[in-house]
């Protein structure tokens, strides 16, 4: 069948949902970070799909910037996780509850 814009968008939605599920339910902080990357990639797919099907190059520019931000975010995120690991000797997200009542 012909692959239209909707297919790419649905693929993007599926990837986003999977990444969302993982980000909310996983306990290992690094895995959470990975799932966040997954979500960002899903958005990128949507951006590029729009760019292709609407003949607007701005979509790809947007996608580049998202990649930039994702990279920076992973760097800082991992630095945070390792810093916490040094302190608490664990990366279990359920144990990070200093903001508890």
């Amino acid at each position: 069948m012909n692959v239209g814009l909707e297919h790419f968008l649905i693929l993007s939605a599926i990837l986003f949902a999977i990444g969302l599920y993982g980000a909310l339910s996983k306990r290992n902080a690094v895995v959470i970070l990975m799932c966040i990357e997954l979500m960002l990639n899903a958005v990128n797919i949507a951006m590029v799909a729009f760019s292709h099907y609407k003949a607007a190059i701005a979509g790809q520019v947007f996608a580049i910037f998202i990649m930039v931000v994702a990279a920076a975010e992973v760097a800082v995120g991992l630095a945070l996780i390792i810093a916490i690991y040094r302190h608490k000797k664990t990366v279990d997200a359920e144990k990070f509850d200093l903001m508890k009542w």
Partner: protein
Amino acid sequence: MPNAALLAIILLPVCSFLFISLVLRPFFNRRPLISAYTTIAAIAGSLVLSIWALIEVNGAEHHLLTNVNYQWLAIGDTVINIGIRMDSLAAIMVVTVSFVSLLVQIYSIGYMKGDGGFARYFAFMSLFTGSMLGLVMANNLLFLFLFWEGVGLCSYLLIGFWFHKPAAARAAMKAFLVTRIGDFGFLVAIIFLYVKTGTFDIGELQTQALSGVLSGSTLTLAAIGVFSGAVGKSGQFPLHTWLPDAMEGPTPVSALIHAATMVTAGVYLVARMFPVFACSETAIVVVAVIGGFTAIFAASMGLVASDIKRVLAYSTISQLGYMMLGLGVVGYGYANQMLGQEEAMALGVAVAIFHLFTHAFFKALLFLGSGSASHATGTFNMLKMGGLRKAQPWTYATFLIGSLSLAGIWPLAGFWSKEGILHEAYAYTSVLFGLAMVTVFMTAFYMFRAVFLTFHGEYRGGEAGDHGSHSLHESPKVMLIPMVILAFFAVIAGWLPVGEFLGAETHFSFFGALTGWIAWLSLVMGGAGIFLAYAIYCRKWLSADSIRKGLGPVYSTIFRKYFFDELYENFFVMRALVNGLFAGMQWVDTYIVDGTVNGVAAVTVGAGKVVRRLETGQLQVYGLAIFIGILAIIACLFIFS
């Protein structure tokens, strides 16, 4: 006579009270006699003014001197007045009250000598006298109720005068609470009357009743409500239980308040409101029946009492029953159209107030005499007294005169007034007349039982540890002189034209009164009572013990006052109210009211516990919450667009 002088009758004793309590007691406590002199001076002043008022009333037309109103409160359309009415009824009452009060105060100087609360006693006595005088001069129900409560308060304060004694404190409380039940009915009746008629004024209420504007069930209910106040204050059945216990107070208090004046306020109230009562047949029958029944009921309890003051207390209740009976039967006669209106109104009042007048003298005298006897022996228990007539001849003589007067022996005062009531009772009812006659017999019996036990025979020792028989002595003159004066009046009071003064068509005939068969019957009954007492207690031809054993259960029932105290205190108060109703209310308060408040708090805490789960500090929970919010927003967008 200027109205200021009339007001002074009330205000002089009240000012005496204020002066003693605010100036003398705090600053001149070392000289308590000054408070006694202040009181006596004030009451003497009231007496002088009262006699003046009496003379003026006699000369005034319709025997009405003044009826003035001073506006006190105006709340919207309601106007409450201070109203004074000086007519023949009020005049007789103020003279009686101030005169007997004055004599009792003089007696008290001797009786209360050395007591630590001397000044307090006279302060309360002044306040009481002022309140009683105000009560009889008030012309509207609200103002009357003010003084009604005032005398009730003073009664409480004076019964519980020796408040360190638990019995006295309890008796004071009992008096206050039992009369409060009656007062409640009275107050409800006042308000009810006001709502229905728009006035508190007694004169207007009387006019409305007589003209038929106020009638039917409204009138009956109101009259019964007012009567309930009288029942409480005058110790009629069923609110009689407080009067015998009230004897815990000092004897002059018993003489003044519980014999001559306060308890007569109930009779005065019914007399004052007599037209209102007489126009409702139900109410007046209630008055008559309760009066007649109380008379014989209380007399029966007086037969077996061993405390001389209690005998006198029962006698008071019984005589008050006579007065109510007098009012009741005349009103009954009017209600059944056997009497004309003006004639009935005056006659009912005359008959009852005449007896009130004579009773004040001889009953106060008898109480003062008992106080004098206890002064020598240290006890009021007659079984421990005896043979006092040698040691206390004056006390004996006056007491004997008082007893003869009470028993209704011609020509002493009690004969004439009792005669009036018996005559009217016979005219309109036979059952109550029979009861009244039996009561004459019982009255004579118990009174002379008291006389013989106390003054005849051998002295039985008195209170242990007190004087031996060799040191029994007569009471000081300051106590004897009032008794002698009262004895004088106990003889002659019946000869005074009280009835005519009150507007009734009674004719006094010194020897002619002996022609009626009722007079003879009452004298025979009285004589029989005296003779029986003589036989049992003086000559011991019959043994009191054997009679007591013979009548076993009857005796013990009467001795236990027909178990009314148990009924009221154990059953009503403890079981029904305290453990029943009040416990139920407490349950409601603890579990429902407090439960609701605590429940609200518990709900808040519980809700907090639930909401707390959102604040875990874990990012994923927060992230989840964010996404749920986003979904909710999308859903709303879908639904509402």
